[in-house]
């Protein structure tokens, strides 16, 4: 049963398994564990990011495509719900319609991008997506009649999901179950289902082919896989999941604007989470999201304490100033690419020699040990 749910892709490390179970339980009982709006907001964001990051990992870690336009789909999902809800008024119909239209739009765009990506070199592609993402964000703020421009859209959700709604006045386990809590559990369920679906996809025969294409596109084509088709499907799938994540975010925030879902900063966060968690492991998305968002939300508080402690040393205090939280995040970023090339998940798995299990993808050997030999990776010279 668990086997089927996890698509036979077990954490393969006791510690990793324990962390995942802990994360799951923490998210499942969050409203009862830590009271307060801030904690609930962080937890909800973790749920959304698990889906968003996992969908990006399908593209980056499994297919080897570096796209900076992923937030575009995230934004489309959020705008879908936002525009439908603000035009049609609060209601499930608006959510459903908005999500569907967004999915359709994402599908078309991802298809176009997927086909386009084959015309240009991989590295070109990532720079081009960067330009596109920027243009799309500008477009979203230009179409202000639709999107509310820079200011974004504030809208309402169906009664049951609104903070004003309460299930019953009597607290359950010390907590009054209001619309916000219900909304949280809606996200929780959606996130769990989508996560398991992605886990299944990467462990399907299709997922394996994606990895083969990532490793050696030329050879994959030569043994009979139509790279175009697989790549395009992967782009589309990852776009669709990101769209759903966007819809989830909009439902939770009851607000959407260009900075909220389309900004480059979000893209950076997503990249960072993938790296910290471990590329090419869907579990990494979950762990990374958990770690990163909690750190991000409480980093400033932490820094405030730290800079207070070293107030005597002006230089250090300036560096530790809570205003410079990004500095530390950037440092974390660099260090994790440096020291955790395989992320938390890769590290934990490596702790345990995985020889006994039929593990088709043990973590790659540390990059430092084997300098890249051109004949084994990258652009293949077709002759011979």
């Amino acid at each position, binding site marked *: 049963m668990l086997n089927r749910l996890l698509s036979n892709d077990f954490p393969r490390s006791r510690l990793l398994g324990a962390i995942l179970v802990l994360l799951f339980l923490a998210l499942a009982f969050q409203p009862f564990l830590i009271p307060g709006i801030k904690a609930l907001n962080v937890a909800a964001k973790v749920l959304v990011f698990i889906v968003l990051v996992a969908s990006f990992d399908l593209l980056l870690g499994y297919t080897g495509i570096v796209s900076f336009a992923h937030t575009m789909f995230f934004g489309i999902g959020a705008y879908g719900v936002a525009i439908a809800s603000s035009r049609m008024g609060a209601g499930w119909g608006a959510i459903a319609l908005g999500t569907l239209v967004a999915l359709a739009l994402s599908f078309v765009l991802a298809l176009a991008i997927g086909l386009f990506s084959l015309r240009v070199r991989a590295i070109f592609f990532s720079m081009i997506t960067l330009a596109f993402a920027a243009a799309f964000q500008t477009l979203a703020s230009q179409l202000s009649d639709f999107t509310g421009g820079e200011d974004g859209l504030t809208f309402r959700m169906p009664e049951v999901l609104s903070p004003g709604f309460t299930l019953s006045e009597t607290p359950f386990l010390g907590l009054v179950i209001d619309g916000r809590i219900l909304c949280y559990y809606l996200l929780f369920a959606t996130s769990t289902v989508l996560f398991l679906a992605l886990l299944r996809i990467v462990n399907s025969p299709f997922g394996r082919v994606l990895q083969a294409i990532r490793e050696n596109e030329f050879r994959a084509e030569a043994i009979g896989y139509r790279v175009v088709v697989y790549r395009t499907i992967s782009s589309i799938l990852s776009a669709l999941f990101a769209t759903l994540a966007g819809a989830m975010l909009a439902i939770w925030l009851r607000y959407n604007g260009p900075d909220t879902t389309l900004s480059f900063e979000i893209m950076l966060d997503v990249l960072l989470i993938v790296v910290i968690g471990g590329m090419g492991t869907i579990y990494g998305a979950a762990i990374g999201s958990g770690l990163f968002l909690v750190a991000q939300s409480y980093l400033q508080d932490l820094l405030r304490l730290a800079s207070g402690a070293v107030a005597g040393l002006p230089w250090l205090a300036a560096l530790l100033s809570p205003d410079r939280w990004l500095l530390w995040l950037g440092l974390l970023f660099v260090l994790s690419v440096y020291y955790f090339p395989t992320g938390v998940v890769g590290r934990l798995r490596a702790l345990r020699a995985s020889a006994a299990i039929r593990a088709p993808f043990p973590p790659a*050997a540390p990059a430092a*040990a084997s300098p890249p*030999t*051109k*004949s084994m990776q990258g652009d293949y010279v077709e*002759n*011979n």
Partner: protein
Amino acid sequence: MSENLLTLAGVHTHIGAYHILHGVDLAVPRGQLTMLLGRNGAGKTTTLRTIMGLWRASQGRIAFAGQDITQAATPRIAGLGIAYVPENMGIFADLTVKENMLLAARGARHARQMDDQRLQWIFSLFPAVEKFWNHPAGKLSGGQKQMLAVARAIVEPRELLIVDEPSKGLAPAIINNMIEAFARLKASGVTILLVEQNINFAKRLGDTVAVMDNGVVVHAGSMRALAEDEALQHELLGLAL
């Protein structure tokens, strides 16, 4: 004649978590051609790479011309007068054949400054090098690349020439040329260390021989002695030469 230009004593090499060489002892006598034989995966390539400093020896000592090079950096090792042809040929695919050659000619800043006489000799051995002089090296055929790799190693005189499987993929006519080239080089005083699977090659050229298995040298001696002792061949290489 029996002075050793290169000696390895008890060399161990680790690659990541793997322990590949388990104490290699090897002596390459000056002015002679030494063959390094052994089945696939015996550790021949690893030995050569360790000599060049491309892997670090974790134990043991490597000396070249009286100098300890165990911990030296690759450029310094090469600078002492060693030319190396790696197993994967190390062709710079995006550069032209000419540029590949020019890089190996350390003294020359332009193609014009390369030793023309020597070039002509190389062209006569490996006609493809001349024919594709201005073509990107990546477009060469497999055998042509192999020719370029060897040509590049001999573009300037060096004291020691280390070659990993020079004959693979070459047509018989070119193999002959290559054997000829190594013989000439040896005659001019160059010391040569070859890893080779082609038995004719080994028998015709080898002065001394070392056979590796499982990361150690299991036999060392003169080529002639090995060639005459069929039982030993069977034991070491699983075949008769």
